[in-house]
């Protein structure tokens, strides 16, 4: 049995247990607080009650500024960081539960690509061995693992004879990131978590890697969770987008809905902060002022209220729920009192967007 045959997407995947309607991953109320040394009782609330689903075959984009918890969230999904509370269900099986799927079995089906393409490769290993390591450790024979590495290096556009024997320092940034993608795919995962995979690359190389990721997703029938701070990249590659702010989800919806009809003031500010690419229409006024607050001591109620132009008393006292408020189509949800008809916010019920 060759690797290519195993990866044929037309054959039904024997690992698909729940069928197409079962989300590939359901995350419920994930929480991770990191204790702060020397400050008793204080903690960095990196991820604070995050719930979402990843559908089979989709690309879910996760956006947010540094410190919003998007990378911690990615690690929670693989238990690289163990969540304080919360539940993960992979294709119908509860992760880590006695009658569910074990962490090791989960990691066989979910792989990750990191931002720093150099530090995520072993500098003392030729890259073909790095790629073969995953299949080998999961029980393949050495020769078999090496064949898999050859095939998958070809798939990511690297000639295995030329690049396979090289060490990471002998490759360019784009080539190293291709190796990282190959290594993630070598264990035939169903889902790949991409944590800022193109952020460290030059613009001309970024486009190549994005094209490659799209082609691989089609060929191998993959599901992506794509984390980035670059809104243009997320718009291009994602089917749905999740917006995070200070450890919480503020908005989640189909990509065009998020970009064309954003509901949350933070999403709007984030979109308005993108450079215009047109010198005749420069941004004259900053969409919002200040920096994101410290996640050690986040604001009460709505965490965005300290920078929000519409903040009122209710935003300080009550945490807004993440809901579609019965008016927004296509499971487009946002956590803002202005969209809750019963919140008591003076704008509630007559916002300028999202009216179905």
């Amino acid at each position, binding site marked *: 049995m060759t690797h290519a045959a195993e990866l044929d997407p037309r054959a039904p995947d024997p690992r698909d247990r729940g069928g197409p309607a079962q989300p590939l991953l359901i995350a419920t109320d994930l929480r991770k607080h990191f204790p702060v040394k020397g400050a008793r009782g204080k903690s960095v609330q990196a991820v604070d009650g995050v719930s979402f689903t990843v559908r089979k075959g989709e690309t879910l984009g996760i956006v947010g500024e540094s410190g919003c918890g998007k990378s911690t969230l990615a690690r929670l999904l693989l238990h690289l960081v163990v969540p304080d509370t919360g539940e993960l269900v992979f294709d119908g099986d509860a992760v880590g539960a006695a009658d569910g799927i074990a962490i090791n079995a989960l990691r066989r089906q979910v792989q990750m690509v990191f931002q720093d393409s150099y530090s995520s490769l072993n500098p003392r290993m030729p890259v073909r061995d790095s790629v073969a390591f995953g299949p080998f450790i999961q029980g393949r024979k050495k020769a078999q693992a090496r064949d898999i590495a050859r095939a998958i290096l070809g798939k990511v556009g690297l000639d295995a004879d030329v690049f396979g024997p090289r060490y990471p320092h002998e490759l360019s940034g784009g080539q190293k990131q291709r190796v990282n993608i190959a290594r993630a795919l070598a264990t035939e995962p169903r889902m790949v978590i991409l944590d800022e995979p193109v952020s460290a690359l030059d*613009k001309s190389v970024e486009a190549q890697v994005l*094209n490659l990721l799209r082609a691989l997703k089609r060929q191998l029938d993959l599901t992506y969770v794509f984390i980035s701070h670059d809104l243009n990249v997320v718009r291009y590659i994602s089917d749905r987008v999740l917006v995070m702010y200070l450890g919480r989800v503020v908005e989640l919806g189909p990509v065009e809905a998020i970009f064309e009809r954003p509901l949350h003031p933070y999403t709007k*500010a984030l979109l308005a902060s993108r450079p215009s*690419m047109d*010198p005749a229409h420069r941004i004259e006024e900053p969409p919002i002022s*200040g920096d994101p607050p410290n996640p050690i001591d986040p604001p009460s109620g709505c965490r965005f209220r300290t920078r929000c132009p519409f903040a009122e008393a209710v935003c300080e006292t009550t945490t807004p729920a993440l809901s579609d408020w019965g008016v927004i189509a296509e499971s487009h949800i946002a956590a803002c009192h202005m969209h809750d008809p019963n919140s008591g916010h003076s704008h509630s019920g007559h916002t300028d967007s999202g009216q179905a």
Partner: protein
Amino acid sequence: MDGDANPPLVQVTDLSVKFVSREATVHAVNQVSFTARRGEVLCILGESGSGKSVTLRTLIRLLPRQAQVEGDVRVNGQDVLAMPARELRALRGGLVSMIFQEPMTALDPVYSVGQQIGEMVRRHTGCDRKAARARALELLDLVGIPSAERRLDAYPHELSGGLRQRAMIAIALSCNPQLLLADEPTTALDATVQVQVLILLRRLQRELGMGMIFVTHDLGVAAEIADTIAVMYAGRIVEVGPVAQVLSDPLHPYTAGLLASTVHGQRKDRDIDAIPGSPPDMRRLPPGCSFAPRCARRSAACRTTVPAPQFIAPERMAACLNLAAPATLTVATE
């Protein structure tokens, strides 16, 4: 200093910078010439390793010892490369100052922001501590740091990324420089903070009438701040022009490729028009045009001849042998 009555703010002619070590020679900057005028923002746009930061640092000779510099660099008519150390110290932070990408590493962690600004002011003007502190307060106000009085005694780690970058800008502006050098000052910042700092820099540059040379890899940032763009590739300037013209009507195939591969407004059902290949190894630059191996417009001559700068208008330069040939007619042979 010399005979020229009103020299351009910056005049760089045939600048080359090599880094020589036992293993290899890195040709970081090759035969670069450009001018920057007073009251204008020149953006040097390029990818990592294109030589943009080295070019910028050469303007105040902020280079490591193994750097070998050739050519002529004049700032306000003064010959920077021939300048003795004493004059150079007066130049840095006086006539010319610089802001860096990473404010946390550029600021000194053991001195408060007020002390760091004050040090600069006292060093250059010789005023006393009290006057320096007053000037520091004035500067924090100028760069839009809220509750400036309290922030004066704050240490860098107590400030957010955006405030730290503002503090660094305050230090750079403390002695009223005529030229501000900015090396990717917004790259490490979050999107909502980046736009605030860009707007601030644009306002300060206009109000203080400074010249600014702004190095970035980001076309979007360049579009927000530049008057003129100089595009660098593999240590050479390949195109220069007013920002609107370069973005709407790029002459050089590299600039055109960079614009086409930008994800901005890309249709979702199509692949991005990526530039094939990767930038050359600066230790072993190919003869001829460095972009030729990746270029769709290349001809045989591109492999052997380094293209000379061609001016199609006084402000509009491109260094390409096949400028006249429209990209659509010449098909690349793989």
